[in-house]
Structure formats: structure tokens, C-alpha cells
């Protein structure tokens, strides 16, 4: 049973086509991340689910019921806003139970559920504070509390962690994920941060310019990107691309460097492609089934546990990642080893995976 079904959804703002033929089915209890660069339509899609935006055509069903034309309050969804949108004139307790007070639930039920939600989020001692007396992280928790206290059919998150500092963001990531599992909720989570999407979601939807580029499990997107955009967007540091042309004998020739790469896939001779290489599949040491090209080290970034080596391959920047400490210095001429089993190929015109 799908909790949310989106069929051929289209959204126009005047002449601007914000969402084009969006189709997503979301299972009860799953955590879906909508990810993409800013302006890709992910927030519009979320707001459409909430009922804050009208649709132009297509259908949206929540728990089997079409919600097209229904106002937000008839959809039974809860939303956490990027800015938290806490009511500044209400204390934490009243912020959290506003929805239940609107529904005129019995007083003791309201008190009980507010208390439980506050305990879950560690807000019990802050219930009588006004939002302006809270820290950023606490406000974020109140915004979450306002959502979970209602026990809604669907949780919607609109970049809820983007205003937190890095350490708190990583912490809240796992908190939200834990909360999701405990409540057995269905969550839709918008983010521009692909790491957030990869680490939190069961199902990732990559969008660009109102179109779904690819959707699937995080590792599916990582291992088998459908096109160059998804390949470049998922993974950090991003995948490297080098232009190449297919030769007639089942080999590829790098445009820059006339290096031939043995190749066992069927690509017609003369076809121009991008070769995609993940940074962790590159090495400065020889491995099994690899090939080498010359490169110059132009920069080293070390995080202690990981080292990112920025190389120039015939003026094209290429990033290499390896565990441990740097093995080269800036300015070194090195041999770059590329593991052939993990290469990706994209057509240069259509940008689709070849």
C-alpha cells in the first residue's frame, strides 16, 4: 500500500514550468529524500503535497484519497519549515499543541501528548519559554515537536537542518532518522545536501529543473547513475569526468591525451562520451586491472582520515580520494591509476549512461 502517490503532476507559475510530469510512489513507513540544486522544484513539490501550492494538472493521493483542491488542514500532514516558523507569541508548549487545540481535543489528551513529545525531544524543561529565548537547535526541536505531537499521516521536512551548525546537523540527522523509525512515519525530506539525502533516506529522488532525473535507493543512485547530472550530484567529492571518443577496436581514446583505455562495452566507433570516475576508484599506486595516465598534483586537502588529491590531467581537474595521509606533494608529476571495473560512461550529447 502506498501512502503517497503522485501521478503526472505538473505545476506552472505563469509561463514557468516548475514541475514536469512528476511521478513518485511512497510506501507507508519509508523515508524519501527530494534532492537537487536550488530552483529544481523540490520545495515546490513538497509544498504541493502540503497543500500550500495549487497544482496545474495530475493527481496527488495521500492514503489512497486524492487531495487535489483540498486545503492543508484536510490533508493530515505535518510540516517542518526551513525557518522553523515558530509562532513567536506562543510559548513552546502552545507552539507544539496549537494543532490539537485547533481540533478541540480534550484537555488531558493535549497535555499528555505534548508532554510525551516534549520528553522525546528533550524539551520538557523549556515548555514555558518563548521561541526568542531558545537556541537554534532548540527551536529546531520545537519545530519537530509541533509535527510529531499530531501523529499525522505524513511528515514533510523542508531543509530543516540548513540553519544549524555542522556538528548539530550531523547529530540531528540521526535523531530525525531514529524518530522516523520509532514513529513508523512516512516522511518526505527536501534537501540540497546530497550527503543528508544519502545517509537518511530509503529512497532518493534527484530533481533538476522540475524533472525527476532519477529515483531509487541511495546506493543504486551511487552505483548506477542514469545520467551525467545524477552521477555528478551524488557522491562527495563529486565524480570526475574526462571527455573521450570511442575508437573502432573496442577502446576509448581520451581527447586530451590520446591515451587508450581498453574497453569491453559496445560503443560505436566515433561516439563521443564522458568517462566518469569516482575519486575513490583512482589511486596513485598500481592495482589490479587498471590503466595509468600522467597527471600533475595541483593541490592536497587532508582531513586527517581522508586525503583528497587534486590533479590536473591535461588541464582537466581530477580529484582522487584515499584513506590516510598524503602520499604526494603539490607540483609532483605522478602516474594516475584508474580502476577499469568502476568506470561510468555517458553519451556526450544526451548525457545518458552508455
Amino acid at each position: 500500500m502506498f501512502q503517497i502517490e503522485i501521478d503526472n503532476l505538473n505545476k506552472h507559475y505563469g509561463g514557468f514550468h516548475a514541475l514536469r510530469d512528476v511521478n513518485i510512489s511512497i510506501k507507508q513507513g519509508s523515508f524519501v529524500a527530494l534532492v537537487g540544486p536550488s530552483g529544481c522544484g523540490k520545495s515546490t513539490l513538497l509544498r504541493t503535497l502540503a497543500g500550500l501550492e495549487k497544482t496545474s494538472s495530475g493527481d496527488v493521493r495521500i492514503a489512497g484519497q486524492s487531495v487535489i483542491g483540498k486545503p492543508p488542514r484536510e490533508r493530515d500532514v505535518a510540516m517542518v519549515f526551513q525557518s522553523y516558523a515558530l509562532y513567536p507569541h506562543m510559548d513552546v508548549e502552545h507552539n507544539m499543541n496549537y494543532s490539537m487545540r485547533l481540533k478541540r481535543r480534550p484537555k488531558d489528551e493535549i497535555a499528555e501528548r505534548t508532554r510525551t513529545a516534549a520528553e522525546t525531544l528533550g524539551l520538557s524543561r523549556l515548555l514555558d519559554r518563548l521561541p526568542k529565548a531558545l537556541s537554534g537547535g532548540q527551536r529546531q526541536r520545537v519545530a519537530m515537536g509541533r509535527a510529531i505531537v499530531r501523529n499525522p499521516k505524513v511528515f514533510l521536512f523542508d531543509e530543516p537542518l540548513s540553519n544549524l551548525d555542522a556538528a548539530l546537523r550531523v547529530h540531528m540527522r540521526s535523531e530525525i532518522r531514529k524518530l522516523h523509525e520509532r514513529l513508523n512515519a512516512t516522511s518526505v525530506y527536501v534537501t540540497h545536501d546530497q550527503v543528508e539525502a544519502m545517509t537518511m533516506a530509503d529512497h532518493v529522488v534527484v530533481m533538476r529543473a522540475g524533472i525527476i532525473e532519477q529515483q531509487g535507493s541511495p546506493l543504486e543512485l551511487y552505483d548506477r547513475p542514469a545520467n551525467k547530472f545524477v552521477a555528478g550530484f551524488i557522491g562527495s567529492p563529486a565524480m570526475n569526468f574526462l571527455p573521450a571518443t570511442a575508437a573502432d577496436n573496442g577502446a576509448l581514446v581520451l581527447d586530451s591525451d590520446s591515451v587508450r583505455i581498453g574497453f569491453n562495452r559496445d560503443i560505436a566507433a566515433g561516439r563521443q562520451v564522458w568517462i566518469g570516475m569516482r575519486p575513490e576508484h583512482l589511486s596513485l599506486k598500481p592495482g589490479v586491472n587498471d590503466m595509468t595516465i600522467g597527471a600533475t598534483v595541483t593541490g592536497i586537502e587532508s582531513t586527517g582520515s581522508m586525503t583528497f588529491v587534486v590533479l590536473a590531467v591535461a588541464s582537466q581537474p581530477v580529484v582522487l580520494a584515499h584513506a590516510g595521509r598524503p602520499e604526494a606533494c603539490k607540483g609532483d608529476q605522478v602516474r594516475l591509476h584508474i580502476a577499469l571495473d568502476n568506470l561510468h560512461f555517458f553519451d556526450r550529447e544526451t548525457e545518458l549512461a552508455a
Partner: protein
Amino acid sequence: MKRYVLLVIGLMMTATYLFPLYWMYLTALKGSSEIFQYPPTFWPSDPQWNFLEIWKNRDMGRYIWNSLLIAIGVTILVTMLGTGCAYVLSRVRNVWMEIALFAILMMQVLPSSLMVTPIFVMFNQIGLLASPRIAVILAQTAKVLPLYIVLCRATFVQVPRELEEAALVDGSSRIGAFFRIMLPLARNGILVTSVLIFLQSFGEYVYARSLIAKNELQTATVGLQTFMGPNANDWNGIMTYAAIYVTPILIVFMLLQRRIVSGLTAGALK
């Protein structure tokens, strides 16, 4: 160094602005011969306390009551009519709203002295002049409503849209969100603007002078005219009257200042 220069300039400008006020209180306290003394004195040599006498003789209680009635009437009417309008103008964004806002701004340009003739003719025809204070309330409402809408709209624009959307998702209707979320958060702006409207209406002159015939119904601004004789003006009386009239307004303004500064929306976002 620069700070002191700015401070001195600021003090000089403040002094320039406040001088007429000082002169009003000073003249109210001076005796009638001291008023015309040259060079002028800047502190009354023999202070006169005529306030109670002027209040009684000139029937100021009645005048001020009429002014108050009109000012309260205008303020209530303007807030009831203008708040919703200001909210809509702050939320709906399209060409028609821009035109509407422009038209509202243009309406402010027309001065009362220009509008009073057509208003008089119209009110006379529909018999509104029989209840002249209501006529003044209506005319003054039409005059200050644009100002109220423009100022209130600015306050509503400052209330983040997400708060309203959060209320909608929380299960509120649009009207519910307006009354429970938007209105409390725009309260300061509405309050300040209303007081401004109240004070403007309290000092209204043109409509009261033209639309109110009976002296018992006349306002305090018009009442000030009774000091103007054909041959002599009782300056001491005029300034005493003015002091009584202006002092409560000054107090209201001073009490209000803190309200204007305090931000109620702090903590809504981020």
C-alpha cells in the same frame, strides 16, 4: 570628535523642533505685557496659572469631548475597515494589487480643503449634516484610511509568510490564521498606526469647521478660534488653551515610543 559634532548638530536640530512647543508653554505662563516685551524673556518673570480659568470659561470640556468622540469614531472605523485590506494587499501579489496600492497612495494626495466642498454637497443631499459629528467621522475616515492601509501593510509584510503557512498546515483555516497568528503579530504596527490616526483626527480642523454648524458639537481645534477677536488676540489665552490641548497628546506619544521599538516577531525564524 566626529561623534561630538554629530551630537551638537543633533541637539541643535532637536532644539529647533522643540522651540515652538517651549514658546507655547512659555507664553501660556507669561503675563499679557510680558508677551510683547522686547528683548523677549525666556523664563516667565511672574508666572500666571490661567489653566483652570480658561478650561471653565471657554467650555473646553465640551470641545475636547467632541474632538475625542470624533477621534475615537474615526480610529475604530479605520481599524475595522483598513486592517483586512492592508493584510490582503500585503499577501496577494499581482498587477491589480499594485494598481490598487497606487490608487490608495494617490488618494492621500488630495487635501481636505479640496475635498470638503464635494463632501459637503453630497452629505447635505443625503441628509448627513443632521448628524454632523458622524459626517465628520466619515469624511475624516475617508481621508486617513489610505495612510492607515499603507502603514499597516508594511507591518503585515514584515510578518513572515511561513508563520501563516505553518498555521494552515497545523489545521487552521485562512481566517483563523489571520486572527490567531497574523493579527497578534502585527499588533504593534496596528497599535502605533491607530494612535497616529487617532492623533490626526483629534487635531482635525477643516471638516469640523465646515460640516459642523452648531457650536455645542464643535471640536477643540475650532474652539481655539473663539480667542480671535476683530481687534485683539488674547495670546496668553490661546497658548493656555493650546497647552491644555496638546499636553495629553505629547504624553501619549512618549508612552508609545517603547512600543514602536520593541520587536514582537523576534524568534520566529532561524
